[in-house]
């Protein structure tokens, strides 16, 4: 079982990350991935991502470990960028490999849903009117709650 988590300001290549996870273990038939990009519209010019260095990495590691405890995975990868990003640039990559497809797909959904509410990242949007912090969305809480026990609180 290989876990890889990383917080970086540099851009990454999602296809390269996907291929790096593929075909490394012979009993591994399934590779699933999610990547998030800066979405244009509503006058958005750019995003800026702030985080809590040290704590973020621990939170991502914890999320990947939880996924690996819950599903039979071979690899789990979470890469998240910080700093300023233009429209269309990648923000986050989440990937999992597993012997079976359901495990890989569910683990990826789990990791991205939980990451949104459990890892200390904050987004600021820049548009023609200035800048503002993105508010957390109730539906993100609901998506994370799908996976987490009501009383379980993940440590950062």
């Amino acid at each position, binding site marked *: 079982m290989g876990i890889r988590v990383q917080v970086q300001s540099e851009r990454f290549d999602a296809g390269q990350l996907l291929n790096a996870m593929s075909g490394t273990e012979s009993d591994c038939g399934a590779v699933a991935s999610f990547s998030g990009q800066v979405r244009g519209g509503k006058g958005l010019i750019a995003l800026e991502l702030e985080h809590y260095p040290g704590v973020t990495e621990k939170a991502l590691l914890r999320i990947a470990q939880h996924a690996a405890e819950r599903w039979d995975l071979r690899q789990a990868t979470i890469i998240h960028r910080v700093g300023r990003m233009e429209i269309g640039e990648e923000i986050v990559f989440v990937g999992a490999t597993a012997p079976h497809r359901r495990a890989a797909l569910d683990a990826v959904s789990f990791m991205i849903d939980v990451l949104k509410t459990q890892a200390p*990242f904050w987004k600021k949007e820049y548009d023609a009117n200035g800048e503002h912090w993105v*508010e957390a969305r109730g539906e993100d809480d609901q998506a994370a709650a799908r996976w987490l026990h009501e009383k379980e609180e993940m440590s950062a």
Partner: protein
Amino acid sequence: MSLTVRYFAALRERMGTAEEAVDTPATTGTELIAWLIERDSRANVLEHPSTRIIVNDEIVSRKHALKAGDVVAFCPPFSGG
């Protein structure tokens, strides 16, 4: 006791600082927030229920007992991904 207090994102901008050393009689998160508001009313946003407290890298409740040397971080709701 002496604590390191950190503020992130909107709270950092509101408080005008990312980090400060304080010497306070507060022994819990709740008491620390009250003490910070007493010192500067701008800190009233820390009372908002959505504010999370991370002490020494662990998310804790407001009732968590603080000890000298702790790093207490105030965080608005996370919005990564």
